[in-house]
């Protein structure tokens, strides 16, 4: 199973949570070591986001992300895991699980209904 892991900020955490967060390099070494990491990156902040729509045939380009909120997407990873529990274990070891929040979304293959 392939999962997109969206890495988001979340101001709702304590200093102790931040203190307990593992090192991202350790996390990366572990997931690449077990062959679970396919791709991923960090993203520039929402100030640098551009939203694009076409409505009534007209291109609308606006400044900022989809929705304004306190949490914003700071990065993403594409994971290959045996099942959801395996993906949850990987997410639980990511530093942003402690100081942000992670959303696991299964990839929907094009040839599947």
């Amino acid at each position: 199973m392939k999962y997109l892991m969206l890495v988001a900020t979340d101001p709702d955490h304590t200093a102790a949570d931040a203190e307990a967060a593992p090192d991202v390099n350790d996390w990366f070494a572990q997931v690449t070591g077990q062959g679970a990491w396919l791709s991923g990156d960090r993203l520039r902040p929402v100030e640098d986001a551009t939203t694009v729509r076409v409505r009534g045939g007209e291109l609308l380009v606006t400044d900022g992300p989809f929705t304004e909120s306190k949490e914003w997407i700071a990065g993403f990873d594409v994971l290959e895991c045996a099942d959801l529990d395996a993906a949850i274990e990987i997410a639980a070891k990511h530093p942003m699980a402690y100081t942000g929040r992670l959303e696991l979304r299964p990839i929907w293959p094009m040839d599947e209904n």
Partner: protein
Amino acid sequence: MPGQGAAATAVRRTVTAERLRIVASLIRITGDWDLAEDCVQDAAERALMRWPSDGIPDNPAAWLTSAARRRAVDVLRRRRTEQAKLRLLQAEVELAVDRTVEGEVYDDERLGLLFACCHPSLPLGGRVALTLKTVTGLSTREVARAFLVSEATMGQRLLRTRQKIAHTGISLRQPEPHRLAERTAGILAVIYLLFNEGYTATEGEQTLREDVAGEAVRLAGLVAELLPDDGEVHGLRALLLLQHARRAARTDVGGDLVTLDQQDRTRWDRGYIAAGLHSLGRARGAEHPAGYYQLQAEIAAVHATARDAAATDWARIVTGYDALLALRPSPVVALNRAVAVGFRDGAEAGLAALSDAVAAGGLDGYALVPAVRADLQRRAGRASAAAAEYRVAIQRAATGPEQRLLQRRLDELTETNPERTP
């Protein structure tokens, strides 16, 4: 040759005992929940046709398992999709291996299925409904009636829950050892909800909902068998057994609710109480400090072992609620504690404890608050204050039996104190 009745009893008993095992292995092999359930149903129908004339087989479990598996292969053969062909290949290989002797594998499969049904990534309502459906084999219509929703709504809920399991890759395996305790707690929470769903019987559907509570008790027993090292598993089983022991005494012949202090204790199920106390002993013997369910079971055990209502050890019950509040603060537990204080120290002390509980918040609009206050005011000798509270309680009561119980209390009050009530 067995009689029709004996054969039917044997089929029912075998299906009850083996259903989850067979469903779990068929889901694992075919990946198709509906197919797995239909095949067990089909095997049960075949058994009902064959066993009266052929005789009850020496190993009824193996007979039923083989019949369900043959059916699964037949159904997969008739489907002509690519996916079915792949599953058929896999299924034929798996089914060729006789695994009926490998008891442990099957236990793991049953547990794996339970862990999947109760996975925290599923919506809670879906977890409870799917667990009931998968474990009991009730029809979607019956599950819908048990949860007081339409069949269409329940069908959608079950479908979406199963789809989420498939789409998100929730597998039918046991969690890693370091996640076992928290995931087990997730199963227990679902069983507890299921039990309460059945316990809060409403009019008309009472028999079905008692069945649901009974299934929850049975499921707690199964989990205790499969995960014997977890103290809370035994704590929950003890709690459910001790509460379910009172089922026959909870309503009178007219179907009206009878409160704990008024119940005919000779109608309590002694077998259930003994089993509950045994489970409580196992929970106490576990390594971990007493958990949420064990503490509740301790309170239920005080009631279960009291000779009559007057002999209840209220001091121990208050201590029990104190421990429960220390572990997990809850307005409803604080309310129950106030009732216990009212019996331990008298009605005035109970009213003071009730005021504290209400002031702590979280009980606004809660129907039991005026009912509890009414009982305490009545016992404190303030009939008119009690009557006013009973009227509020009647308005807020959720079910007919609850309303009638409160109305009876109000009537008794006005009969004994005609001049003092407005």
